């Protein structure tokens, strides 16, 4: 039941709304267990349990030297995931921007919008006279 691989721990830690709220709070500055227990209306024990999960996942660090061991948000484990989202979202954005242009051209040309036959017959050799470019400019 107890998972130990880093990804499972990161995802497990993020799956809980309270822990996400704690991270959100910590992203604006470090806080002690006491400080966290107030806004979240939880016992120190309950907060500590959540913090332990976050700490194991590497999403927070706790200073050993200070008396109240304040917690600090550690973004590092999330960076690859965030990069992934940003990168893939950009691909869809650019792709769909281009599709938008393509649709505008199609509709202006008054092309038959629904031609299921041509869809079904897509494997036949094409006689498309247009150059294979993905950047059709509106005329």
């Amino acid at each position: 039941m107890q998972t130990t691989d880093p990804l499972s721990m990161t995802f497990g830690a993020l799956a809980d709304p309270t822990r996400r709220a704690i991270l959100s709070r910590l992203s604006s500055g470090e806080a002690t267990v006491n400080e966290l227990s107030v806004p979240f209306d939880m016992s120190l024990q309950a907060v500590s349990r959540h913090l332990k999960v976050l700490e194991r996942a590497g999403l927070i660090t706790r200073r050993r030297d200070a008396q109240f061991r304040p917690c600090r948000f550690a973004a590092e484990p999330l960076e690859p995931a965030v990069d992934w989202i940003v990168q893939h979202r950009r691909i869809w954005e650019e792709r769909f921007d281009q599709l938008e242009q393509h649709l505008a051209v199609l509709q202006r040309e008054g092309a038959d919008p629904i031609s299921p036959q041509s869809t079904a017959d897509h494997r036949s050799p094409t006689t498309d006279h247009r150059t294979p470019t993905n950047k059709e400019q509106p005329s």
Partner: protein
Amino acid sequence: MTDTTPTLGELTYTRTWDAPRELVFECMTTPEHLTHFWGPVGVSTPIEKITIDLRPGGIFETVMVNDADGAEFTSRGVYVEIVPPEKLVWSEEGVEGGMTTSITFTDLGDGRCETVAHQTNVPEMYRSADAQAGMVSSFDKMAAYLATVQG
């Protein structure tokens, strides 16, 4: 995380089209159309290198050519689910440890339609309903506030 571990991620991308969903669906499933937009920017997708066998288990293959240096990237997918003109799902085993993409097409009733593209390379074992809900919303929020933290 080590360099050899594929980064896991999941995203949902919604778009409204000023076109009927039949046409948008056709554009997403026909080489003659795909070649015009599959891109993305700076990347061409030659029509003669697009393979579409529109049935569950059929091939969906594209070769993307970098406009700058001619480098080619082949993306080989397999269709999982096809419900014209409502839904399209394919998976790519060779991409980032296994990528699944699903697109739903909703008729908005006024000549427009909406597509929701959902893409994930998170393995099934991580995708219980709870974990998924948590991840999607948290990653989207994280992306927003990480930008603030790091900015």
